[in-house]
């Protein structure tokens, strides 16, 4: 039975070789954080990392992912949602419906690996994921926050742990 290295664990799967990685992750390995949006690599909701590189898993045949390649999904990005991007996302209440946000965060994490302090232009080029609710400006602000380019959140939001109410 073929296997994949996903989030640091070897996982067996049983699927036809041309099955996209997305559907093996979602339907065989139970990793539903990675989403189906378009199936043609247009929207980025299915973004995962393969050996650190952003990959749109909806068009990546699972048979082309060898057991030696390291696949990381949103569930394995950082323990307990502790990645700086995840923290920034929470600090700025970025998600609305949230459906595209796994892909957004994974795409942003891939960007930060390439450019730890990305410019707006680099963010423009890298972040081609589609969001229909319209979170783009908070996505940009959260990437800047996570990359340490701004000290404080650009948006004033009261969180329960520092609530003054």
């Amino acid at each position, binding site marked *: 039975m073929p296997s994949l290295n996903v989030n640091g664990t070897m996982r067996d799967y049983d699927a036809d070789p041309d099955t996209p990685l997305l559907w093996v992750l979602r339907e065989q390995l139970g990793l539903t*954080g990675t989403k189906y949006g378009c199936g*043609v690599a247009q929207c980025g*909701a299915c973004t995962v990392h393969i050996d650190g590189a952003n990959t749109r898993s909806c068009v990546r045949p699972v048979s082309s992912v060898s057991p030696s390649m390291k696949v990381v999904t949103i569930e394995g990005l950082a323990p307990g*949602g502790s990645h700086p991007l995840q923290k920034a996302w929470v600090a700025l209440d970025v998600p609305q419906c949230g*459906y595209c946000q796994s892909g957004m965060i994974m795409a942003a994490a891939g960007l930060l690996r390439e450019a730890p302090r990305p410019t707006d232009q680099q*963010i423009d080029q890298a972040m081609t994921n589609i969001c229909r609710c319209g979170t783009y400006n908070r996505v940009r602000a959260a990437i800047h926050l996570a990359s340490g380019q701004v000290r404080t959140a650009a948006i004033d939001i009261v969180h*329960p742990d520092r609530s003054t109410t």
Partner: protein
Amino acid sequence: MSAVVDDRVVRISRREFIGSLAAGAFVLGFPLRGVAQQSPPPFLPQPSSGTPELTAWVVVKPDDTVIVRVARSEMGQGSLTGLAQLVAEELDCDWSKVTTEYPTPGENLARKRVWGNYSTGGSRGIRESNEYVRRGGAVARAMLVQAAANGWQVPASECRAAKSVITHGPSGRTVTYGQVAAAAAKLQPPTDVVLKDPKDWTIAGKRLARLDTVDKTTGAQKYGSDLVFPGMLNAAIVDCPVFGGTVKSFDASAVASRPGVKHVLRVGDSGVAVLAETWWQAKKAVEALPVEWDFGEHANASSAAFADVLKAGLDADDAVVGNASGVKTLADMRASLAAAPRRIEAVYSYPHQNHATMETMNAVARWTPERCEVWTPTQNGEAALAATAEAAGLPIAQCEVYKQLLGGGFGRRGAVHDWVRQAVDLAKQVPGTHVKLLWSREEDMVHGRYHPVTQCKFSAGVDAQGNVTAFHMRISGQSILASVAPENIKEGKDPVVFQGLNPPGPEASIGYGFPALLIDHAMRNPHVPPGFWRGVNLNQNTLYLECFVDELAHATKQDPLAFRQKLLTKSPKHLAVLNMAAERGGWGKPAPKGVYRGLAQTMGFGSYVAACAEVSVSDDGVLKVHRIVAATDPGHAVNPQQIEAQVEGSFVYGLSAALFGECTVKDGRIEQRNFNTYRVLALHEMPAVETIIMPSGGFWGGVGEPTIAVAAPAVLNAVFAATGKRIRELPVKNHSLKRA
């Protein structure tokens, strides 16, 4: 009950029943293999069973956890948090202990609709339920205080409550809500509670973080399409690409031996589905399935043919009046226009558009002869329940719907539950098995409920001083209600057509005062089914009106702001947001080199909104929207940081529509099948947005939709300022902005 039942789909479901018997469902038997099996996931409702409720809205557990029940659906707009804030405000509880749950539509029916309306659309979530949910919190607080007072044997008037703690003033004794909740639940609810003045709010009105963010950043959040049940089969469907067409035949044997395939089933008279172990197997199989269609009477329909029909409606005599003042009839208006020294005319048009929610339509259904259950993302749980019962052929009391978080709604998941009917129809053919139906993106694109298609003709009479003496706005085109709720069409009039154009009133009125005004509608309904599309008819009505008013200002050599101000003297709230957007947007002041400004204002969904957009257009015609300043008066602002999120999101939705949004029809079917042919706004195209929230009190307006309507006209008026080109046919992508 008020659930909207789509007459057209009801007819199909009746035929479905006959079809499933007569067509001979093709059934295959394979053992399940290799599919991840999980126990049913935790659904959004956190089980509050075991702890008695205080009111329908509030449960307080012994550990002080407060469960606020929310009837409206959460689809990203944030009203789950906003409604909880309103309840918690009146409850005076500790906000950090608040959690939420959805009561099911079945429970609501069983309890005589104690939670009221489940419909989540029209930016109604907060504005139409704020009063009764706040009362639910206030009554619960009074019961908790009374229970504490009873325990201390003191008058309740000597006790006060704050942050889930009740204090007896004279003695200083305290008790927590959780400690008295059980006793409080046994008390008779008071009927004389007084709600707080919003100026005293400490939880509502604050920029609180949403309650539902963390799981959306870790992949833990479950959506309908993520659900898994033991033994569940996955379904992929192909419905006739031409609306109104039917299945003639299909050759199930061609795909029967494909891996994982279990059943090939007819869905109603227009669709075929494959049920397989995994969805990917089902999708591949249904794509390979040979199907012969009868495309029906609309097989040759096209957008060009619709456009001709709509164009004829622009001058037709059969229009229904939506708003008239100073004149009574079309003949009066024509006479007023004829008498004017100068006449200015223009024709605009707006295309079909798909909602394109990021999560495609989906539902899990399980049917037995005794019961039918559905798990689905829906904007209206009660309508989903009605559709379930109808399709299941069971009494509604034997059905239930479990609402899931929506991966986008925008109106697609509210009025018509076509995908629920399909899922139930499939489940009925495999009794006892959970069936998860998930639409492919392609299926979602070609089986939408589209933004209605309309054209609009303006005729304005202008005197020598540049004053408008007569103003005729003729809308020709599609009615949503004629398709979705025809029982609401009275004397040929669809009132929703006139959104933003109505006489003075609390919902969606035109602000401009003209000496003679006539706004009328010639209804023309092409076969493409329309639906409520975020912003609905306010979108194109505001685009038409605000661009043409801009045209009038330029044609009469008046400043577009001053021209509007003159027409808004009797509409102070419209004027206030316009003035604010103009001032903060820098109207009348020098703009950066190459940058031009445009204005727009409107009223809809109970709120007043305006925008000032800054754009540049390069010599080779590339449009860049740099910045938009938006002002909103929603009466009361329950969570300002979420209103800002809604305003920003509205510009993404509105600019997607203005720049790219177009579904065209050829050979009776929608041509755009995925995001590569149906472009939407990308992050790099998103302007900076500055949101000014200016709640003036005394009314409750919605915030999820109205701002969408000002996005396109503010930008197009700025494009005119930059290029001298007036775009009257949407979307912008079909026009060249190159300098001549």
